[in-house]
């Protein structure tokens, strides 16, 4: 196997009339399958290391400025499809990037740094995905009963030993789940390869096959890639099956004693402020950049040329954008109605029915967490372009991609909603329902009068988040959205248009504006729903 390209390029060139050294990280190619594995593995390793480091500090220690860091750490959770990645690429471009501009033009060091190709993709993945590991690991750490630690302290163990013997040990499930999800998310990611124009990756190849939908996506090569990516993800899913079950998140522990954070030593504080804070700020660059982009007249040179509000006016003025927004809202709301209904049905049945059916429902509802969006997209494409669906309203080519997109949104967001609803049902003591049955109410009546009102907030919280994430859904939107072409009255959602407009003269800024709105909506939904859900105490059992 002959690797193509070079890992690192170091050149002395004349740039802007000066002699400088440029250092560009790229990466070598071994063919898309191996490339995808390598990229996903490296991203996962770096991401996991960083995620664990942050998760070991934030929940376990108290130090000045902790709440700021904690909020900063979850910033990458809010992603603007394409816009965030574009900002990363822009920031690290050796010619027009802000980083090299500061190093070379402002400070005057004769050095310019760039990230391109695979290195660019990995960098962008790491900045957006470490939060997955961080959240999973810190959830595991937060679920450790503090009495376990007190017991060890009481037996004379030092905190360092406790960290090694108990905490790391008990957070293994969180580490495993976080790392696995990171791997799946980075191998299936389609936005970063598009942004860095790195087509030697599986995800990109699948995406490209849809550019010529009538023949390409049915080509043996594309189908092979799709199946491969499904198999990889399912393999990983089976490994972490237990940790992604929605039931796991709904368990109510009795007499649980939460962690008591330790005071961080002076040395520790110094380390936090020297390494973690800069990293977190660094990882927030994409989000900050999206807002700058959203208000820029044009941002090609290292600094924006000027600021304006007209990018937002395009939401209404630009007919293509306007239609996309309308489409996204229609698809998302439709998906949401189905999701709400299905998740109540699934969560309720598996909460009340014991045994294998419940396990089956749980598995069925959680699998989509692991199945890549591109696989879902191409799966539905193949299904709906074949008989008996061919030519019906399901057909994304002959009729409209809207139906397939809506169904795909439903499938992709269902697991998360089921999780919220299931947690809600768990909060309602089963006796409240039985008391109604006992007084003569039918199952349906007992559910609607004694259970549903008590979990309404959970449903609302889950719905809010699901809606916003449907709006930001990328893989399916990008792959299926354009199958009917993009002209007035098109059927593509926002994310497709964001991909389409990226790196066009004025389109880039509109992508930024759309991204900024999506980020804001995500923040609102997340904050509201977590406020709703946290303020909701265990009901029914005193």
């Amino acid at each position, binding site marked *: 196997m002959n690797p193509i390209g070079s890992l690192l390029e170091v050149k002395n060139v004349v740039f802007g009339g000066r002699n400088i050294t440029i250092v560009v990280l790229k990466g070598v190619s071994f063919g898309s399958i191996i490339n995808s594995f390598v990229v996903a593995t490296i991203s996962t390793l770096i991401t996991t290391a960083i995620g664990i480091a942050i998760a070991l500090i934030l929940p376990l220690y108290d130090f000045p400025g902790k709440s700021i860091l904690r909020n900063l750490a979850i910033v990458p959770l809010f992603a603007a499809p394409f816009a965030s990645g574009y900002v990363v690429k822009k920031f690290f471009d050796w010619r027009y990037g802000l980083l090299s501009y500061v190093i070379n033009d402002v400070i005057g060091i004769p050095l310019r740094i760039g990230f391109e190709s695979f290195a660019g993709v990995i960098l962008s993945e790491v900045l957006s995905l470490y939060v997955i590991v961080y959240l999973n690991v810190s959830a595991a750490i937060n679920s450790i009963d503090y009495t376990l630690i007190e017991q060890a302290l009481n037996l004379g163990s030092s905190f360092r030993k406790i960290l090694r013997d108990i905490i790391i040990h008990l957070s293994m499930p969180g580490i495993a789940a976080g790392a696995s999800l990171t791997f799946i998310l980075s191998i299936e990611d389609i936005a970063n390869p598009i942004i860095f124009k790195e087509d030697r990756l599986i995800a990109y190849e699948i995406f490209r096959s849809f550019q010529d939908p009538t023949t390409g996506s049915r080509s043996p090569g594309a189908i092979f890639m799709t199946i491969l990516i499904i198999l990889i993800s399912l393999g990983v899913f089976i490994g972490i099956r237990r940790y992604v079950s929605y039931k796991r998140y709904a368990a109510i522990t009795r007499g649980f004693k939460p962690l008591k954070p330790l005071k961080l030593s002076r040395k520790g504080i110094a380390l936090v402020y020297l390494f973690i804070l800069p990293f977190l700020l660094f990882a927030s660059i994409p989000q900050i950049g999206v807002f700058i982009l959203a208000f820029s007249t044009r941002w090609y040179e290292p600094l924006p040329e000027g600021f304006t509000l007209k990018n937002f006016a395009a939401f209404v003025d630009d007919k293509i954008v306007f239609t996309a927004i309308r489409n996204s809202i229609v698809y998302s709301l439709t998906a949401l109605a189905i999701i709400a209904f299905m998740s109540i049905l699934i969560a309720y049945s598996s909460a009340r029915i014991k045994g294998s059916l419940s396990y089956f429902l749980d598995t069925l509802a959680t699998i989509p967490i692991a199945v890549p969006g591109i696989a879902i997209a191409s799966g539905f494409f193949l299904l709906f372009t074949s008989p008996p669906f061919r030519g019906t309203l399901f057909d994304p080519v002959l009729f409209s991609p809207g139906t397939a997109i809506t169904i795909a949104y439903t499938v992709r967001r269902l697991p998360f909603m089921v999780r919220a609803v299931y947690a809600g049902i768990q909060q309602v*003591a089963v*006796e*409240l329902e*039985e*008391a*109604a*049955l*006992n*007084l*003569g*109410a*039918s199952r349906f*009546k007992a559910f609607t*009068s*004694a259970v549903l*009102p*008590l979990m309404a907030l959970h449903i609302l919280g889950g719905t809010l988040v699901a809606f916003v994430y449907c709006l930001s859904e990328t893989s399916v939107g990008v792959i299926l959205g354009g199958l009917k072409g993009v002209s007035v009255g098109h059927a593509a959602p926002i994310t497709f248009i964001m991909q389409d407009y990226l790196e066009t003269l004025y389109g880039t800024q509109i992508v930024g504006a759309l991204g900024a709105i999506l980020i804001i909506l995500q923040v609102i939904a997340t904050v509201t729903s977590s406020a709703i859900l946290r303020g909701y105490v265990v*009901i*029914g*059992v*005193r």
Partner: protein
Amino acid sequence: MGFVDILNVTKKFGNVVALDNVTLSIDRGEIFAVLGPSGCGKTTLLRIIAGLELPDSGKIIINGVDVTYEKPQKRRAVMVFQNWALWPHMTVFENIAYGLKIRGVSRNEIVKKVRWVLELVKLEGLEDRYPHQLSGGQQQRVALARALVVEPELLLLDEPLSNLDARLRIEMRDELRSLIKKLGITAIYVTHDQEEAMVVADRIAVMNRGRVMQVGTPSEIFFKPKDLFVATFIGRANVIRGVAEKIENEIVYAKVNDKLIVGLKSSEDLSIGDSIAIVVRPQFIKLGCRGDEDNIFIGRVLSSKAIGLLTEVKIDTPIGILTVAVTGLYQKDISSAVDICFDKENVYIFRYEEVSF
């Protein structure tokens, strides 16, 4: 045949046998207590009667009708749950009115009935409150009112007082009994508190590990326990291990450390040479005895502790350390000698099996 007949009901959860061939017969108008330690299957039994759980085998017959597989909605057995299960999003009025609404009672009638039941349980004026705005005792009454308002033929109460503080519990148990009696309802009353069962119930079934150990009136259970479990679960007891030396009719002569104890034969299958457990209740042991009484031993005072009206005295005797309950204050120096004795009618002698507990 009683008003409620529970016939050979067995229920397993995995390999836990929650109910093991339970047979009980409850008469109309009776308050029937099911008493037993935590986990013995009391709740499971009530849930099966209410139809919230199906038995693995056996039958439930209410008023002559086999309701074993009847839906819970169709049974006229209304339950007061262990945790009361008040709907937190409904007011007191709405909670109580729920069952009436389901039964399609008219609005006027509902208002009338709720008012009646609120008066009955002394909760007038609280109808617009939400459960969380009530005290524990008031919540308990709402739960009771919610069940009573539909005028059930059979009332199932699952430890209805267990969430109340000790004082309120004592107050409420008398009230509860007179209320149920006044309405003439048949009630099955589950509790793990033997005193509560004695006060509230007409008859008691003592359960252990899914099995019914004994059924009887409170005094039968207390004075004629049929086995060691019942004898020790009801009231306090000194348990002395020994061997059966001689058996004459219903009297057993037992040997303990070379001393002889005389008592009632309380296990049917007891024969000479059997390992036995001798039960004597602390309140039946007398201090300072005359020479002609049964079961006299000399002992030494180990400790004495005043508990309310009683003083609990521990005495070291040749047959072991015994706890004695003395009315009033007992003032005797530690380690001073004292005669103890107890009537043979108050001594229960059981065959002892290692697996008894």
